[in-house]
């Protein structure tokens, strides 16, 4: 929530419907958790599709998964987990009132986020040149799996695409947080915006923690 000026005796960030900043921050944190519960179910629909088709077509899924570059996927996992660490450190800096440290870690987190999206687009480009985009021009090397591999890639693009959209939104949030930190809105008594932005960022990380093994690591041992 944007801070707004209320009465003089109040903290500028205190909204009129709350009695204290503590009550307000408890409510916003709970709000973020409830929102994340929504997000779990949002991705949940895709995971349900994945579970059904993986159970139906395990060989096609393994073959399709092998065609994705595991190095890019693993690198991205490392990048994203590192960004989660820097995000946690940013929240810690906000709690302890170290503004410069906070801003530094926010910038590092954003840079890592951009690196992640960059690697992702390289990966998408590879898929594009290999005709692995589902649709009329789709073709898969192993003709036996031509149909069912489309299901895998539809899910691959939907899941990673939706994850990437969340990353982009996350970068927008980080930019706002950087701006607020720079303006000095974030203080040790009012750092809940950073805290809930952190919760969101970690959630996006968790989604990736599941996407990585499910999309990149199946059927690797066969080759």
């Amino acid at each position, binding site marked *: 929530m944007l801070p707004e000026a209320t009465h003089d005796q109040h903290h500028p960030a205190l909204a009129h419907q709350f009695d204290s900043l503590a009550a307000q921050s408890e409510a916003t944190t709970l709000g973020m958790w409830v929102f994340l519960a929504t997000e779990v179910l949002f991705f949940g629909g895709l995971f349900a599709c994945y579970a059904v088709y993986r159970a139906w077509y395990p060989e096609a899924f393994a073959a399709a998964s092998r065609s994705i570059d595991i190095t890019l996927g*693993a690198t991205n996992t490392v990048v994203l987990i*590192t960004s989660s*660490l820097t995000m946690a450190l940013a929240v810690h800096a906000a709690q302890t009132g170290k503004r410069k440290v906070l801003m530094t870690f926010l910038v590092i987190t954003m840079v890592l986020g951009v690196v992640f999206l960059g690697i992702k687009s390289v990966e998408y480009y590879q898929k594009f040149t290999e005709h692995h985009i589902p649709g009329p021009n789709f073709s898969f090397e192993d003709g036996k799996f031509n149909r069912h591999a489309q299901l895998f890639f539809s899910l691959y693009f939907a899941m990673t695409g939706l994850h990437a959209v969340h990353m982009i939104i996350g970068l927008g949030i980080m930019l706002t947080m950087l701006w607020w930190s720079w303006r000095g809105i974030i203080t040790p008594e009012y750092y809940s915006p950073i805290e809930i932005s952190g919760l969101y960022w970690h959630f996006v990380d968790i989604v990736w923690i599941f996407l990585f093994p499910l999309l990149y690591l199946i059927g690797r*041992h066969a080759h």
Partner: protein
Amino acid sequence: MPLRIYYTIFAILMFCTYLTVQMAFLDLGEWNTFAALAIAIFKATLVVLFFMHVKYSPKLTWAVVIGSVFWLGILLAFTMTDYLTRGWRTYG
């Protein structure tokens, strides 16, 4: 919270990433999937408990986290109840 905890968790997460990639190249039969998922769940739990501070949060936060996972479980389990008990497979 001491910073040491964040670095320790980070190290464990990195090790688990290494482990899950390595295990993917071993032929464990059906256990490949279970191992990959177990490691992912373990990693996610660490992130939730420490990076997201749930370990130090009120019971209500725990309830929201557990509730959301439980509802995801309902979605997956009841959908699979159908797919795993069909005597036929469509469009194979």
